[in-house]
């Protein structure tokens, strides 16, 4: 701990030195000064120590202190000569919420990077060898020549040495400070050239680049050098615009200190000097500045170069010079250059390391297309830097005795490219600003975060606590399913199938049209995360977490819209997150798709509320999107919820019609009712249309799979009714639902939600906010669903065929989740007060806080100047109570690895073998497979290269040319060459037949295959395998799982619906603009 505080003090002292030294630079902002303080202070301090050691003075704490005090005194004397008026005081900026949000993001990243940096001792081989060992040897007075890599300059080793002598091993602290300084410098320059928001956006992009933050946590000199070089380049850019001498001096000093940090600085100096000469006016003043630039750089570079030369240390100068000569003489080695360029291009795709940073440059060029001429300076700097980057590695490959070029590229390319990245972010910020593309977004002053909304998010974090630890709840009911569903989804996506329908490894490799009948919405999100670099388990955990965190805001938005009360919305949102069955869904059932669908229940209620109460194009689209999203994420939930939705729409319509029509039953009322029903009806149809790509084939082709597996025996719904005591029992378990009351899982409503719902009756009686009818609706829904879950409802289940809507009676708890949460919100409402007679269609009454209801229709976005709700202690305490009420249940049975081993096809097969799960079959299968030839191959540790059944033909008569690299087989089929000696041969694939499978005969034409005809499929045996008769001779077979008519129609309907939604939105925007 002492070492940690020593390192903090060390950094602070050197930053103070730099801060004083920079006082002479009157034109730089306080933030830039802050960003440069440590770099200047530490660089000059270590340089002075180096000069001291050249004089033969041994390294000791006294020398360190003396040098520091001397430098501080000099900086102080120089600073005193500066007019105090010339330094603008640091004003505390007035930040809006978006800026605060961006600052919070930056704060979180900085905090995590700081923790990671100070936690680890140096561990990477070259950080230990080049920088830390060297520093420690300097500290031991082993002479500055030292052990490994003498050619590297000593800025960092001297700092490490001083830190070591002062008794601290917190070496990484230095590198973290350099990384943070780089962010500050880029921010300050962007702030100067653009505005605060764009500067913050740019800084967030920079600071979220994984490789950059990683480098800030290890002891490599690349981050310090990136700071020196980038700061120097940005000062040069400023100089070329302002012609202020101070900027040129600062740029030269920073690059000089860069030369004292890494050996490649002269190359960057040459490039910057070229830009300086190129873009300066051709006059005496500019020439004097260029000369001064060179002298300052030379003064800081020369001592180190002379030292290296006199000590006869090996350097790369000769290799670099020979490469430069090679290029100048026109003997460019194109092979070597293309190797470097290809590597650079390949790094563009390294999303987990570089994020989307490489996309920024083309994007910035597009954004800044109109200002391309004005941006020539910064673009030239970026281009020169890129050339320098390529040249660095081109020259490294010139020495045949050194390490291979590939080794250098793998080890060092990213680190050197670090220096390029901040320049691109800077240019991106400029382009973003000049294009004005984000003006409407970033300059919005309407974004005000409701404090209760923020509190809801904060309180919801506890619900995902078990997800944040290592491991995963592999033993949860669908824990493994959720991961392996994503695994199968990814298999198809990796084969270029943008909308997967077939899961190739279900049922021991026979395959199953899983995504044709199971809504894929959650897996698209998971796949996006997986493609972003997360492994399957982490991606699944993140989707779980997002589903939980987003469900609260969804309910918040709906209840806020209903009641215009943030407090009610807060309580409802919190209950929705923490109601026990929601937690069961996560940590006991691990029902990923269902959990994601729960987000859309309140959103659907909200969307259709608007469609009835406030019919417009916008409300129609909102209703359709919510309802469509629900269908696309979980068909079962959509089916279960649709009757409730119909009741909700009818209820709203009746309320509205009753207000308009007295007496109620008139002919006019009927026609008015039909008009009123049009928007919600069209919204529902459009919603289903949006999801038609899934819904239509799922409905029409559902009979193509066997469902008896999921409806008989254990799945018989009559064994899964809940008992009344279970609704109020605090019992918790991770087991399954059993026949009778001895279930091993909880069906409780939750003590806090139940009590809150009971107290909500008071609000109902008082007609709080004039919403009595709404409370009655949700109270009735709670009672009805509770009733239907109890055994005495069996006749109703049989009569109404309720199993069509819910697999098990206890799954109706999904509906009580919604109604209980809404009822809980009612407790925050007071008496009838000034909105006593408000009805669902009434938008003109003044709510208690003085806003119109119309203004507050965006739950988290309030009107300009709108009043921010004050936080109330009792409501917060109620919120805490809701969290505490469910807190004991926030546990997951996590293990680091599944019993089946790592996530893989083998793991999936082991899961199928041990649990009998993920073994769905098509309707043509009469005997469900328990093993397969593919399983034999995978269990032998090999790869399946073909699913053809090879044991069923004579290889002397029929020969197959299976590609040995496995490229012939894909998740949706197989391509294989054959040579049949006679015409009586058949081929059988170990794949379940299902509509959509086709086999084609093809011939090779050049590199392509040309299909000549389709071969009729016959369904073979009890496993319903695909079989075809093949003709004599040498041909190709192409097996493909293709779209059927319902799939094609569904895709077109979805496409059309998306188009319609866009047209409606555009019309809405246009209408709004015309109105303005």
């Amino acid at each position, binding site marked *: 701990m002492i070492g940690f505080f020593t390192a903090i003090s060390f950094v602070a002292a050197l930053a103070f030195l730099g801060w004083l030294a920079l006082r002479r630079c009157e034109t730089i902002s306080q933030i830039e000064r802050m960003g440069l303080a440590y770099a200047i202070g530490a660089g000059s301090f270590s340089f002075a120590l180096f000069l001291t050691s050249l004089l033969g003075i041994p390294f000791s704490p006294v020398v360190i202190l003396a040098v520091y005090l001397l430098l501080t005194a000099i900086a102080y004397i120089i600073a005193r000569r500066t007019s105090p008026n010339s330094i603008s005081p640091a004003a505390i900026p007035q930040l809006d919420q978006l800026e605060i949000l961006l600052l919070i993001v930056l704060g979180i*990243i900085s905090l*995590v990077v700081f923790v990671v940096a100070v936690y680890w001792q140096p561990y990477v081989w070259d950080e230990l060898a080049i920088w830390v*060992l060297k520093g420690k040897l300097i500290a031991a007075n082993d002479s500055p020549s030292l052990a490994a890599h003498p050619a590297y300059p000593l800025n960092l080793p001297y700092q490490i040495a001083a830190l070591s002598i002062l008794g601290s091993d917190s070496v990484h602290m230095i590198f973290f400070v350099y990384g943070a300084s780089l962010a500050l410098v880029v921010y300050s320059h962007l702030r100067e050239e653009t505005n605060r928001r764009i500067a913050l956006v740019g800084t967030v992009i920079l600071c979220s680049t994984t490789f950059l*933050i990683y480098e800030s946590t290890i002891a490599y000199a690349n981050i310090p050098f990136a700071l020196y070089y980038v700061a120097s380049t940005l000062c040069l850019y400023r100089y070329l615009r302002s012609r202020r001498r101070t900027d040129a001096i600062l740029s030269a000093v920073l690059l000089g200190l860069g030369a004292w940090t890494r050996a490649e600085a002269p190359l960057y100096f040459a490039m910057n000097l070229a830009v300086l000469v190129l873009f300066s006016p051709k006059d005496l003043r500019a020439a004097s500045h260029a000369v001064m630039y060179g002298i300052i750089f030379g003064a800081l570079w020369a001592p180190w170069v002379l030292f290296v030369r006199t000590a006869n240390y090996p350097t790369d100068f000769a290799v670099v010079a020979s490469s430069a000569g090679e290029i100048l003489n026109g003997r460019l080695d194109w092979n070597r250059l293309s190797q470097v360029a290809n590597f650079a291009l390949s790094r563009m795709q390294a999303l987990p390391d570089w994020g*989307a940073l490489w996309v920024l440059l083309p994007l910035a060029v597009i954004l800044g297309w109109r200002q391309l001429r004005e941006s020539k300076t910064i673009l030239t700097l970026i281009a020169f830097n890129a050339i320098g980057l390529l040249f660095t590695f081109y020259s490294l490959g010139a020495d045949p005795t050194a390490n291979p070029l590939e080794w250098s590229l793998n080890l060092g390319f990213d680190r050197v490219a670090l220096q390029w990245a901040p320049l691109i972010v800077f240019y991106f910020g400029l382009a973003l600003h000049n294009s004005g593309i984000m003006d409407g977004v970033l300059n919005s002053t309407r974004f005000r975060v409701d404090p209760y909304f923020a509190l809801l998010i904060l309180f919801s974090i506890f619900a995902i606590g078990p997800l944040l630890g290592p491991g995963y709840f592999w033993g949860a009911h669908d824990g493994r399913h959720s991961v392996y569903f994503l695994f199968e989804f990814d298999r198809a996506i990796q084969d270029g199938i943008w909308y997967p329908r077939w899961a190739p490894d279900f049922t021991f490799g026979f395959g199953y049209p899983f995504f044709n009948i199971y809504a894929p919405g959650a897996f698209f999100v998971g796949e996006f995360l997986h493609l972003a*670099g997360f492994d399957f388990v982490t991606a699944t955990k993140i989707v779980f977490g997002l589903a939980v965190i987003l469900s609260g805001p969804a309910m918040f938005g709906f209840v806020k819209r209903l009641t215009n009360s943030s407090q009610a919305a807060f309580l409802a949102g919190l209950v929705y997150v923490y109601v026990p069955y929601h937690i069961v869904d996560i940590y006991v059932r691990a029902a990923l798709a269902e959990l994601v669908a729960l987000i859309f229940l309140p959103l659907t209620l909200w969307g259709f509320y608007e469609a009835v109460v406030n019919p417009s194009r916008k409300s129609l689209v909102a209703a359709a999107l919510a309802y469509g999203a629900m269908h696309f994420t979980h068909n079962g939930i959509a089916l279960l919820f649709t009757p409730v939705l119909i009741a909700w729409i009818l209820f709203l319509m009746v309320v509205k019609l009753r207000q308009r029509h007295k007496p109620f039953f008139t002919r006019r009322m009927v026609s008015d009712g039909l008009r009123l029903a049009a928007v919600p009806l069209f919204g529902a149809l459009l919603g289903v249309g949006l999801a038609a790509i899934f819904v239509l084939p799922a409905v029409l082709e559902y009979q193509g799979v066997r469902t008896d597996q999921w409806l008989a025996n254990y799945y018989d719904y009559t064994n899964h009714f809940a008992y009344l005591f279970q609704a109020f029992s605090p019992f918790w378990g991770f087991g399954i639902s059993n026949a009778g009351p001895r279930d091993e899982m909880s069906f409780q409503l939750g003590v806090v939600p139940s009590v809150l719902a009971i107290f909500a009756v008071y609000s109902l009686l008082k007609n709080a906010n004039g919403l009595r009818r709404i409370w009655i609706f949700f109270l009735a829904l709670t009672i009805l669903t509770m009733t239907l879950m109890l055994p005495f409802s069996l006749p109703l289940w049989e009569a109404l065929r309720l199993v069509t809507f819910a697999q098990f009676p206890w799954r109706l708890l999904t509906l009580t989740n919604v109604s209980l949460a809404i009822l809980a919100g009612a407790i925050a409402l007071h008496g009838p007060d000034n909105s006593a007679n408000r009805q669902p269609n009434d938008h003109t009454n003044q709510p208690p806080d003085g806003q119109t209801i119309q203004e507050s229709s965006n739950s988290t976005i309030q009107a300009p100047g709108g009043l921010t709700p004050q936080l109330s202690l009792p409501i917060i305490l109620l919120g805490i109570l809701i969290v505490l009420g469910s807190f004991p249940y926030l546990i997951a049975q996590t293990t680091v690895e599944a019993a089946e081993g790592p996530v893989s096809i083998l793991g999936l097969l082991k899961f199928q073998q041990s649990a009998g799960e993920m073994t769905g079959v098509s309707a043509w299968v009469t005997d469900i497979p328990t093993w397969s030839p593919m399983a034999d191959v995978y269990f032998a540790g090999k790869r399946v290269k073909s699913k053809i059944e090879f044991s069923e033909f004579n290889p002397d008569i029929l020969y197959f040319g299976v590609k040995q690299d496995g490229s012939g087989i894909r998740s949706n089929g197989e391509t294989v060459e054959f040579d049949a000696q006679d015409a009586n041969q058949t081929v059988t694939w170990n794949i379940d037949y299902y509509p959509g499978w086709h086999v084609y005969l093809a011939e090779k034409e050049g590199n392509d295959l040309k299909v000549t005809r389709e071969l009729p499929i016959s369904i073979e045996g009890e496993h319903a395998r695909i079989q075809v008769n093949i003709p004599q001779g040498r041909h190709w077979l192409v097996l493909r799982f293709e779209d059927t008519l319902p799939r094609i129609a569904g895709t077109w309907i979805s496409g059309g619906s998306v188009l319609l939604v866009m047209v409606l939105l555009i019309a809405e925007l246009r209408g709004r603009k015309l109105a303005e």
Partner: protein
Amino acid sequence: MGGHKLVRLVLQFVVALVILAQLFTAARWMLENITLIGAQPSRPFDAQMQIRLGAYYDLVRFVAQETPRDATILFDSSSHINLDLYFLYPRRVFYDRDLIARTQSIDYVVLTGDVPPIAIPGQKKMLDDKRGIIKLR
């Protein structure tokens, strides 16, 4: 809504996507690291190195324990030159096998298990069945 507005909308979407993609990559990195640290917040130096360097660290720690600080050590493989230098300092470290024949100054030979071991008489002390040290003098 004109065509340029649609372009603007698309560009806004792309910019938002870029920022989100960036944040996702950072979130992943942060999550992995904080999880690792959170599993054992007060991990001692040896445990840290064990996580980062694996089996190699066991060997180098074994060598450091079994040899005096002024020892001259020959490694039979040069796969971790710089790490050997760091962890065994101030011991002197060599990698040229021929040194055994040419000089008498080698005190210990380290068998790394990476290559066929040097067959040389001396007092052997093994870390496991492949890795250990031979004391020559």
